[in-house]
């Protein structure tokens, strides 16, 4: 913690950056902090409650941080992939941000909960994580903690769904997606959703019905998942933001597997790795095409 605070203080004092994005203690667990002076930098924390991905604040469409000047951002391994994603898609110039990586031992699913990190509270994406030390970081702080506890629940759920019949899956998802209220919180939380005008807000023509009936909810969720296919960095923010607990992570993970099995792509914090959107191999599998 001291290392992080000292580094933030130094970067601010030197004038390398004008603001450090990190986490600080809030009334309900930790909250995002925008430290612009030594006092604020001294309040930064990092612990398993720092679940939130701060990288969405760097998206050019979110101008609040930009107004403060050059930023440093504190990232976990998963968040670092979002930085790489923005760089890859020319939304952020790598030299315009100082990346402070924190070595991570997993975070809890609900940062407001007082429970400690345990197999029961750990965030879905953490068990088995292999990017606990961001490679893209300019500075990396902290000791590498023990690996996140528990086992992936998502793998089990996906396997379970895949074992069901199409009808059962349809029923399952209609039930889940049926709760969607079309608040688009998933989109707002996502670091990779940076369009100037989301296709869901397009009205001429209106591809995605705006009301929360089954057609609109289905079209929206298919569209969101597909637009993130091969781009999603698996930070879990969409699912966490969802007020009606739709397991969006399952859709993301399913497509991430497609990206890796079919196209050999896994989300990475190396911006030089090309995304599977916009590239192809002549011998990409096509067993589903007659």
């Amino acid at each position, binding site marked *: 913690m001291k290392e992080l605070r000292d580094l933030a203080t130094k970067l601010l004092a030197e004038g390398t950056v004008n603001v450090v994005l990190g986490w600080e203690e809030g009334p309900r667990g930790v909250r995002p902090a925008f430290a612009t002076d030594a006092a604020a930098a001294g309040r930064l924390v990092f612990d398993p409650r720092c679940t939130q991905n701060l990288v969405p604040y760097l998206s050019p469409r979110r101008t609040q941080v930009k107004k403060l000047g050059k930023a440093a951002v504190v990232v976990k391994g998963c968040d670092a992939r979002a930085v790489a994603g923005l760089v890859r898609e020319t939304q952020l110039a790598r030299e315009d941000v100082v990346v402070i990586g924190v070595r991570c031992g997993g975070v809890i699913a609900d940062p407001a909960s007082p429970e400690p990190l345990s197999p029961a509270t750990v965030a879905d994406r953490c068990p088995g994580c292999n990017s606990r030390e961001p490679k893209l970081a300019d500075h990396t702080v902290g000791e590498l903690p023990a690996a996140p506890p528990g086992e992936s629940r998502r793998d089990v759920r996906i396997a379970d*769904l*895949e074992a069901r*019949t*199409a*009808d*059962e*899956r*349809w*029923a*399952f*998802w*209609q*039930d889940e997606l049926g709760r969607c209220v079309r608040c688009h919180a998933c989109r707002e939380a996502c670091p990779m959703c940076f369009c100037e005008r989301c*296709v869901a807000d397009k009205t001429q023509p209106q*591809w*995605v*019905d705006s009301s929360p*009936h*089954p*057609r609109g909810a*289905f*079209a929206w969720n*298919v*569209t969101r*998942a*597909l637009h993130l*296919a*091969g781009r999603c960095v698996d930070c879990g923010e969409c699912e966490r933001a969802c007020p009606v607990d739709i397991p969006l992570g399952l*859709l993301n993970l*399913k*497509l991430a597997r*497609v*990206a890796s099995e*079919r*196209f050999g792509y896994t989300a990475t914090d190396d911006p030089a790795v090309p995304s*599977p*959107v*916009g590239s*192809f191999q*002549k011998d*990409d*599998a*096509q067993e*589903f*095409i*007659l």
Partner: protein
Amino acid sequence: MNATLDKTSFEPRLTAFVCNWCTYTGADLAGTSRLQMDANVRIVRLPCTGRIDPLFIVKAFERGADGVIVSGCHPADCHYTSGNYHARRRFAFFKELIEFLGLPEGRITFSWVSASEGQKWREVVNDATARVRALGPFSGYPGTELPAWPAAGAPAPNPAPGGGGER
């Protein structure tokens, strides 16, 4: 599920999104060769499979299609060299997602049909129609069905709660 529905009387409607240079021309050839086929498919002509957005397919189902065909040039034959390669990736993601969401496999048919494959186009049309006919009407969005098709008076699909799959 739809026990009341006489399956033989059900004529599915299929929308086909095809590229202009290979499949559309292949379908032209099927015509010139007078290859008889099922009359359930309506073609929407696009320049290239690269232009085909999964949104089209979703919308077609929303608007009452029971099945969709997507077809274009074989790999390496694309009129625009690589539109179909990009489309293939896009369709791979889409197909896997839609299957995971529980849309039965047979409702969407992906194929490559070249300008010389009139015969293959007929098979694609007939097979896709047969598959969708066997699956029955698509009514994936309970309560929001649109009027039946083609003829007025045909029994309206009877939605089963939460159902979109086989019946």
